[in-house]
């Protein structure tokens, strides 16, 4: 049933010709919560200006930040740079009280890419994807599971999900890929 190997080995998961789904390598992930008034101090510590608009992103080096809510940011960072991020945020804690929680092990990510990428996502995502611009991201739903969706390009998305939901979401994406592949090969037309 589960499409993921027990050790979550990165690599291709499903492919339809017009869209491919692949599991991404592990990365450092953090949930940052802070008051908007403390953003300047934290931006300096992190080394990236925290985006203030929900859905907006910013990145410098290996640090990538998405604003999820008025006081919440999703921070990705290379695993090797994660300790430095933790240290730098801790150093400004007295000036800018915040919560920086390591959620690296909580989530896995897949990349969904190809001309039918958005079409595949509509299988479980109620959002109008045309309203998420390239270079933005949102927290939303994928067939009942909360996910963070990053739009890297017109036809390129990343989906972060809790690892316990990943088998369900990935199985759905696999089914979708199979359906799209069948449509392409004309099999869909032959269905009764």
């Amino acid at each position, binding site marked *: 049933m589960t499409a993921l190997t027990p050790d979550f080995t990165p690599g291709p998961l499903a492919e339809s010709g017009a869209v491919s789904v692949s599991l991404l390598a592990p990365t450092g992930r953090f949930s940052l919560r802070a008051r908007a008034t403390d953003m300047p101090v934290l931006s300096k510590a992190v080394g990236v200006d925290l985006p203030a608009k*929900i*859905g907006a992103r910013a990145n410098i080096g290996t640090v990538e930040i998405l604003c*999820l*809510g*008025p006081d*919440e940011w999703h921070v990705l960072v290379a695993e090797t740079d994660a300790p430095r991020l933790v240290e730098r945020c801790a150093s400004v804690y007295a000036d800018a009280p915040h919560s920086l929680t390591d959620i690296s092990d909580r989530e896995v990510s897949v990349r969904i890419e190809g001309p039918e990428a958005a079409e595949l996502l509509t299988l479980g995502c*109620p*959002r109008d994807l045309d*309203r998420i611009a390239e270079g933005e991201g*949102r*927290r*939303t*739903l994928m067939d009942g599971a*909360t996910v963070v969706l990053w739009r890297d390009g017109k036809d390129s998305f990343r989906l972060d999900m809790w690892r316990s939901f990943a088998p369900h979401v990935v199985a759905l994406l696999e089914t979708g890929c199979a359906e799209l592949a069948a449509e392409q090969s004309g099999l869909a037309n032959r269905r009764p």
Partner: protein
Amino acid sequence: MLLVHCPYCEETLPELEFAYAGEAHIARPAEPSAMSDEEWRDYLFIRSNARGPHFERWRHLHGCGRFFNAVRDTVTDRFLITYKAGEPRPDLSSLKEAAE
């Protein structure tokens, strides 16, 4: 499906991302121990159960995560307005006029 405007995201989004959270503007009594059983019961359980415009809480659960308030007509299921938590209760007559 209902479309709900989140006052924090400033976007109108599918209902699936939201969770209903009961009637709005019900403040927890400052001194529960000073209340009679009847008063405490009323605070806990008695709601207006409005037919028509209803002040209610929603949460953008699968989104920005914020609680906010809304006025929804329970007859038509139409949202008259949504507004941030902590903002005062909007004037109902002007909302109704605007909706007509």
